[in-house]
């Protein structure tokens, strides 16, 4: 395993702050969006796009690219920020988010946005698509990897479990899934709305290898992902323990901030993310 230099780690942590700033600005400009949920997975998205994944921004259809599917499509602001910083489209375009005629739709739109692998927003579907890509990759004897990011509320969807079962059945070790375990969903805490614990045991029972990490520790994200890529017989799911709104003091763990912030709060947020 390539040794992760301290310098690189600092750079990735700065990049994650940058993605968070973009997200706040985008949601403020659009007066619409889900800021907190993008912040809980910003470190995962950052690690994937700026360290782990092999992609070519100038050639989004490059056939050997690694694939990332944002199954929790409501966090697309953070994905768009990563794609822009990576060079798939200009950073200035981020402020067109959710405006009319924009390439940056409220939830991922494959047809409009360079770098988006599949449309999402209707929870439960991304892993299923990932299974199809993984089967295609194996058929073509390709070595690219497929990353799927789901939310924990999303585990309520039966479609997730259909996909999980089929990934294990077909031994698709070229898939690595992430669950953004921020413990909250729209109506409240996951354990109150629809308990999915014991989550790790469920995934193991479905034939997956399970690891649990601090979803805000970029070193842990990278190490868990690299280890998963060396496992041959089974896919891996990385349960990433996170905080909704991570990075901004008044948002951390507060479900209320699914909604909009005041201008004062936005200024405070951007200050904290410097």
């Amino acid at each position, binding site marked *: 395993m390539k040794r992760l230099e301290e310098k690189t780690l600092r750079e990735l942590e700065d990049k994650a702050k940058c993605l968070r700033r973009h997200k706040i600005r985008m949601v403020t400009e659009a007066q619409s969006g889900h800021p907190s949920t993008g912040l809980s997975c910003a470190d995962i998205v950052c690690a994937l796009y700026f360290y782990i994944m092999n992609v070519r921004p100038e050639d989004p259809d490059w056939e050997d690219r690694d694939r990332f599917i944002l199954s929790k499509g409501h966090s697309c602001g953070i994905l768009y920020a990563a794609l822009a910083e990576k060079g798939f489209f200009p950073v200035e375009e981020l402020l067109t988010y959710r405006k009319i005629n924009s390439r940056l739709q409220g939830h991922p739109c494959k047809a409009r946005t360079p770098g988006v692998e599949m*449309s999402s927003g209707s929870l439960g579907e991304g892993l*299923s698509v990932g299974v199809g890509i993984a089967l295609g990759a194996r058929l073509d004897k390709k070595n690219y990897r497929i990353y799927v990011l789901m939310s924990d509320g999303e585990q309520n969807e039966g479609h997730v479990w259909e996909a999980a079962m089929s990934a294990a059945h077909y031994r698709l070790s070229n898939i690595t899934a992430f669950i953004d375990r921020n413990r909250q969903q729209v109506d409240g805490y996951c354990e109150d709305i629809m308990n999915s614990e014991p989550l790790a045991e469920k995934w193991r029972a479905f034939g997956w290898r399970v690891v649990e990490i601090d979803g805000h520790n970029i070193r842990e994200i990278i190490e868990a992902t690299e280890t998963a890529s060396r496992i041959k017989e089974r896919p891996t799911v990385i349960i990433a323990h996170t905080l909704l709104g991570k990075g901004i003091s008044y948002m951390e763990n507060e479900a209320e901030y699914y909604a909009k912030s005041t201008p004062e709060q936005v200024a405070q947020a951007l200050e904290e993310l410097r």
Partner: protein
Amino acid sequence: MKKIQEEATRYAFGEAFQELFKRNKRVVGVSGDLFMLFGLTEFARENRERCFNVGVAEQNLIGVSAGLATTGKIPFAMTIAAFASLKAVDPIKMCVAYAETNVKIVVSHGGIFVGKNGASHQDITDFAVFRAMPNMTIITPSDGVLTRKAVPAIADYEGPVYFRLGRPPVPTIHNENTNFTIGKAITLRNGSDVSIMAAGIMVHQAIKASEILKEEGIEARVIEFHTIKPIDKEAIIQAADETGAIVTAEDHNVNAGLGAAVAEILVENCPIPMKRIGVLDVFSESGPDEDLRKKYKMAAEDIVEAVKNVLARKSG
């Protein structure tokens, strides 16, 4: 080639799929535990590298097919109509229609003639669902010959297709000279008193109806609409202009299917008397096909009665 008198369109598909699969390496088969319905059980087992079973999981069937399509494959996703158009419709909307992936959804057991299985296995809603979903093309051939011509055309077409086939054997009415073009209706019989526009299994009832009508001195034009969407607007307007009265016939709810597609064109372009034959917005039931045809008014005789109705309303 041996002439086939009667065959089920789902089996004709199975044979055509095998030929296509051998010729075109991008083609893959995916099914929700229903390769058997198309006569493909052995074939899928012998070709595991490119034939994937997802078991009884129709949403996953569609997601997996969409994923395969993004890697450049041409997936044929196989199940029965009801499970695709109803149980799996959100992944079809999100991962196929909206994402514009090249998935071909192939279903058997369209309509109510599903071999005594009853309402759970019938589908009278699929045309309605996919007519109202952007980017979907809906094709339903009347016989085995047309099915075999449609399969390579569907593979060559770039974009989502819903290919609706039937369970029971049906008479062969087309031959090697029939031209199959997606979106182009086929005139099977000429006539100038009325046009009977039919799809799928009801084409056969339409032909029978035209023979009954001929005995009574009424010359009916019979037009097959194998493509429900996009509907052949020119064919509808021409038939309206030239015959002045239309009856539609489909193995689908009388609401929101072929009849509605035709009515929409007529009302905006050339309003003339029209009547729709189809399932009268009720769930059907178990029973032999002949009994279902009589009880649910899906027989040639019902088309004949509808023709007389529109002729009486025709002015001049």
